[in-house]
């Protein structure tokens, strides 16, 4: 996979940044001509993950880009933080599991909303989540 256009990074350090993260992903989803439902799913997933980065990761970065796998175009969004990390990934990806501040749908729910979902986390080192939504 190659990044089609510049990978633009932006900090996620405040509630305002979460709003801006949604707007950036919306602009890319429209540029990629995702269907309205797919746009909505991708922006919603990005909103969940941006909030995770802020609330659980103590802030971080979001990078987003249009990508192309040879047959389809898509939008790729990456969230990185250097927070406490996730000690039990399987548990964290379970519906309803919460660290205490939400509904526990952030990770498990956003995974269902996108086509590709990859998460890496090391306790004490931080968490990186990459999602992709492909145009149909």
């Amino acid at each position, binding site marked *: 996979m190659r990044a089609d256009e510049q990978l633009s990074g932006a900090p996620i350090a405040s*509630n305002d940044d*979460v709003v801006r993260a949604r707007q950036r992903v919306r602009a890319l989803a429209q540029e990629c001509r995702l269907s309205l439902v797919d746009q*909505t799913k991708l922006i919603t997933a990005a909103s969940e993950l941006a*909030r995770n980065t802020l609330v659980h990761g103590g802030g971080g970065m979001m990078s987003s880009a249009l990508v192309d796998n040879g047959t389809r175009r898509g939008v790729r969004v990456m969230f990185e933080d250097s927070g406490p990390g996730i000690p039990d990934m399987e548990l964290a990806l379970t519906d309803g599991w919460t660290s205490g501040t939400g509904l526990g*749908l952030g990770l498990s729910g956003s995974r269902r909303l996108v086509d590709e979902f990859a998460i890496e986390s090391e306790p004490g080192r931080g968490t990186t989540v990459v999602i992709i939504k492909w145009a149909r």
Partner: protein
Amino acid sequence: MSERVPVLKIGDVLLVSIQTDLDDQAVLNLQDDLAARVVESEARGVVIDITAVEIVDSFVGRMLATIASISRLLDAETVVVGMRPAVAITLVELGLSLGGVRTALTLEKGLLALQRSGLRPADGPADPTAS
């Protein structure tokens, strides 16, 4: 500084129309403002218009469910109106079906639903036979 969403009063009903992409603090402010306004105005119904809302994530979804529960405790009924089809599809897939939240497709239908539960959303008696 998070913006505050205006809360309008029409008869016994409080009307909130969300027009912009709210940050999380603005969402929490709205929850608190509405609870205070329900008591202060003795409203019997709350209508939340999300026609202009492009995405409802778990934070906003939880706010809608919480407002409905708080209002119920304060003797007011909440109806969420104007949800877009893509938002409904996304919420269900996200795992949030908002079981305890009453919905109507349009503002008009939402007000009618409250009226049928005996409220007076505009000037006029709640019971049409009483006029």
